[in-house]
């Protein structure tokens, strides 16, 4: 018996096994999943916005970043001093011109990691950088988390302790999405999800990305490796 014969025997042996679930039922269930995911993500974004609104002063404390990009001057000395005493920012160079713009930047600011996303490029690199800095994160280029992940359920947690948006509205500024992460505050058993949407910007165009979502996912090897 060769391999093809064996394959035919196995396939024939299972030929009577059929999935009888109607397509309409699958479509309806899929639609429910889609609706639930949107509401969960909207809720997560609202939680972040609320947390930022509640802790806005704490966020503003480190100062508005990207002074060099915006050209503004003012109360940014705290940031400058912090940056000068911390390791140099690790950035992802943009592959093409203009060479001065970086896709994303991660810098240390006290116990916080300051993240600026100006362009949706090499998000796996951003994820790896944040993980190397101790933040157990899952970063995606959309508002959806990977299919291998599931939401983390807990009765009591504060998103604002872990991630804070620079812009109190939770929307990206002219310099892109800017936010802070405290890796030590990510709860045990959870991964921090960061979904950066490309909505509104065609691929490859430099500029502020679209809305961002965040939340907690259950920490599993499959999700962490996704």
């Amino acid at each position: 018996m060769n391999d093809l014969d064996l394959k035919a025997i196995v396939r024939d042996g299972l030929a009577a096994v059929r999935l009888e679930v109607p397509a309409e039922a699958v479509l309806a269930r899929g639609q429910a999943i889609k609706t639930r995911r949107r509401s969960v993500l909207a809720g997560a974004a609202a939680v972040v916005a609320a947390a930022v609104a509640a802790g806005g002063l704490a966020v503003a404390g480190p100062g508005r970043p990207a002074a060099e990009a915006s050209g503004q001057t003012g109360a940014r000395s705290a940031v400058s001093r912090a940056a000068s005493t911390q390791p140099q920012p690790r950035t992802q160079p943009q592959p093409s011109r203009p060479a001065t713009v970086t896709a994303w930047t991660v810098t240390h600011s006290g116990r916080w990691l300051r993240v600026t996303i100006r362009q949706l490029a090499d998000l796996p690199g951003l994820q790896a950088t944040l993980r190397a800095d101790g933040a157990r994160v899952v970063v995606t280029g959309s508002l959806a988390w990977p299919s291998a992940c599931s939401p983390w359920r807990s009765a009591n947690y504060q998103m604002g302790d872990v991630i804070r948006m620079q812009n109190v509205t939770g929307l990206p500024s002219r310099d892109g999405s800017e936010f802070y992460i405290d890796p030590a505050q990510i709860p045990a058993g959870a991964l921090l999800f960061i979904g950066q949407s490309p909505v509104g910007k065609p691929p490859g165009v430099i500029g502020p990305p679209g809305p961002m979502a965040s939340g907690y996912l259950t920490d599993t090897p499959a999700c962490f490796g996704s």
Partner: protein
Amino acid sequence: MTADSTEFTAFYQAARNNCLRAVYVSTGSRDAAEDLVAEAFARAWARWRQVRRHPAPQAWVVATALNANVSSWRRRRREQRLPDDQQLPWADPGTSADPDVMAALLRLPVRQRQVIALRFMLDLDTAQTARTLGMAPGTVTAHTARAIARLRAELTSGGKQEAWQ
């Protein structure tokens, strides 16, 4: 019905039975496989614009179903093999698998079973199987060779005695 739902429905009709068989072989439980595959197809529809671009959407469905089953595998140790001298307790001609074929498959270690399921039911190549199961291509090749050798021995008349004793 939208163009997307028409396309998805056609995909579902074409792929559902092979996906069910692959997950059934992998998990060893018909009921669980039906639930897992139906749920995985629903998730595929929920993100169809992404899944439709996947190089092997059937593999995406099976991988999603198997991933959803991982935690319950860990809790219940469902991957335990059927003892060599034990026959399957059920036999429902018309809707069930061939008892001899299924028993031979369930005697394989779970990873060999998963590899065979993807290779035989979905016609995936070594690289696609490796990506779907998260293992190295060499490991897939080794599992495939061992599983085929054992299945050949089991399913060939008298072969079991020759191969394993």
